[in-house]
């Protein structure tokens, strides 16, 4: 008993002086890695799929945990700021879907490409932008990643093409990015995301056809969260087997609530594309806790019981945490420490996002054209002029 108390107090006091005691704690108490069984993917036009077991290292586990928790808390902070009217307009949150953005990122390289629709804050983060730049963009300040000019749906980063407001339009764009990848010959792939609602857009089928015809390294990814705004999948689609909708394109249906399942499927899909076989389609079965956007309470077309059930049985962060604790990859206390760190990071980012000034009015006309000499832009009448600089 005394030994246990001593161990516990050592772990707890480790909070004050982290590095040394963590190394101590790590080498003494935790496993380096563990093997987990993951759900088998449903396959379409594929002989084999991703493996059904995977090895998770402690380091990766902690990283995924922290990333998912960061996305979660960032989205909840956005909810709060929206209700305080500090964020305006549209705000589509992805809490519940964290395993998708984190798992996808874990399966590709930073030099690969990604494009998605408007539920994009999580991807903006996993693709490398700091939380403070994301929140400051949501609050429309000059420190935002788009200097306040884009807002929630229009955030961009290196190899991350947004953030797109028009449902489905991002899919041909993604196929085009994949064309560039093939053209440049650097073995890069493009992850092209869309939702179950967007899956019924004609332009997606046009993109499927050309991607297959030209063997573009495009991973089409349907994030199926069961509802396109207020319309359930059964009411919108004649076939809800989204992973099969690419017809001649091979597909997998993946458990989108399990970050490891998503990671393995992504690695598999990326390998398929990199080997020159052409496009592949992944359907990630996932769920959003919030409504479609902050204007949608999210309970007129689904029950609170359903939301609660997913939260209690399939929450992606909980699933990872349970796995790690049960396999001795991490302790509950350690993960709680990470929670505290994340909360602080989000708080600091929110502080920044609230205090940072709005963009300067003089820059209203900037960024109309690229690489052009400055010109004049007309304002609300012919006497109001703005300068436009590239």
């Amino acid at each position, binding site marked *: 008993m005394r030994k246990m108390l001593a161990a516990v107090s050592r772990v707890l006091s480790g909070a004050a002086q982290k590095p040394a005691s963590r190394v101590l704690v790590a080498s003494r108490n935790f496993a380096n890695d563990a093997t987990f069984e993951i759900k088998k993917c449903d396959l379409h036009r594929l002989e084999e799929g991703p493996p059904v077991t995977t090895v998770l290292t402690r380091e990766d586990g902690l990283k995924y945990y922290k990333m998912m928790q960061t996305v979660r808390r960032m989205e909840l902070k956005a909810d709060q700021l929206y209700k305080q*009217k500090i964020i*305006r*307009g*549209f705000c589509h949150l992805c809490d519940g879907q964290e395993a998708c953005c984190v798992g996808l990122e874990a399966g590709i390289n930073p030099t690969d490409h990604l494009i998605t629709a408007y539920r994009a804050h999580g991807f903006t983060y996993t693709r490398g932008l700091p939380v403070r730049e994301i929140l400051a*963009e949501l609050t*429309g*300040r000059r420190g935002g990643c*788009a200097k*306040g*000019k*884009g*807002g*929630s*749906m*229009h955030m961009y980063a290196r190899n991350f093409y947004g953030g*797109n*407001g*028009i*449902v*489905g*339009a991002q899919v041909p764009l993604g196929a085009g990015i994949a064309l560039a990848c093939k053209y440049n010959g650097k073995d890069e792939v493009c992850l092209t995301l869309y939702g179950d*609602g*967007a899956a*019924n*857009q*004609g*332009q997606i089928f046009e993109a499927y056809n050309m991607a297959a015809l030209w063997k573009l390294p495009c991973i089409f990814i349907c994030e199926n969260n069961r509802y*396109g*705004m*207020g*319309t359930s999948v059964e*009411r*919108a*689609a004649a076939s809800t087997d989204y992973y099969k909708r690419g017809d001649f394109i091979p597909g997998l249906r993946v458990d989108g609530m399990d970050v490891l399942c998503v990671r393995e499927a992504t690695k598999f899909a990326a390998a398929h594309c990199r080997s020159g076989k052409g496009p592949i389609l992944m359907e990630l079965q996932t769920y959003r806790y919030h409504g479609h956007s902050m*204007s949608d309470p999210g309970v*007129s*077309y689904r029950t609170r019981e359903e939301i609660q059930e997913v939260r209690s049985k399939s929450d992606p962060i909980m699933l990872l945490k349970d796995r790690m604790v049960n396999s001795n990859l991490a302790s509950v206390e350690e993960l709680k420490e990470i929670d505290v760190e994340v909360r602080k990071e989000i708080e600091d980012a929110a502080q920044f996002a609230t205090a940072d000034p*709005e*963009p300067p*009015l003089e*820059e*209203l*006309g900037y960024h*109309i054209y690229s690489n052009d000499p400055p010109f004049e*832009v*007309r*304002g*609300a*009448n*012919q*006497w*109001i002029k*703005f300068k436009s600089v590239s």
Partner: protein
Amino acid sequence: MAGVSGLVRRPLQQVSGLLRRRFHQTAPAALQVTVREALNQGMDEELERDEKVFLLGEEVAQYDGAYKVSRGLWKKYGDKRIIDTPISEMGFAGIAVGAAMAGLRPICEFMTFNFSMQAIDQVINSAAKTYYMSAGFQPVPIVFRGPNGASAGVAAQHSQCFAAWYGHCPGLKVVSPWNSEDAKGLIKSAIRDNNPVVMLENELMYGVPFELPPEAQSKDFLIPIGKAKIERPGTHITVVAHSRPVGHCLEAATVLSKEGIECEVINMRTIRPMDIETIEASVMKTNHLITVEGGWPQFGVGAEICARIMEGPAFNFLDAPAVRVTGADVPMPYAKILEDNSVPQVKDIIFAIKKTLNV
């Protein structure tokens, strides 16, 4: 502005039902009705009057409409007449046009007109031009409706005004209501019209209440397409606008009245066919003209008005060049300070009026 968007976001509760009950009594007094309610009533009355009329679009049925404009209609008319579509604008717009060609009278809702760009080929090539191409054989009695133009904080891809784009096309009729009376009378006329009509509503106006005069409470109340209305008579300057900016013009007129400047404010109501005669008659009286619109300046509604004035009798009555007040010539920025300066404000209208009058 924040208050109005708050109204937009909060679902109306008992009010709409209450109003409907009062409506059916022979109430002689004027009634407070929001633009949303007026659209709802107009569609309801036309759905009841003609069984060929039906509504399709995203979230129009079970969700009661993305902006609650079609609230209660699915409950009343069911799956056959109020149809939820998948997110397939090009597809369902084409389907709607086909149904119109076969004799039905569809109301095709675009959740916002920004998404109509995905379907614009069907609107222009399949709907607008067909009666002409068939030498009068095949009419297309369809209404395309939805919110148009800037909202609040929805950024570049969701804030464009399509008045100039649709107004450009022969074969289409294009209407742009401002208040509840406009909304009700125009939607009813649009539905009864045998031609393709594009109705450009405004999201920020949906929650705004107006007095609906007794005549507008009749089930046969129609506003003729192609006729503008003088909202406020005046003598010093003609101020022409459509949609939400009409309200800003009236505000500007009130401010200027205190300084002895009387503005004649014209609510266009229809973009195409444009009622240039009403504008000309006004200019011939006031000798000064400004136009106000939310859309971009280049090739816009104001540009067309100015060109037509030059071509007609009113030109010789102008004492100063006509002036346009428009949205700024930029994609709509998100940050509030930038957005506020990208749309025509009351101060911009007042400034333009004074400059034109040289005061």
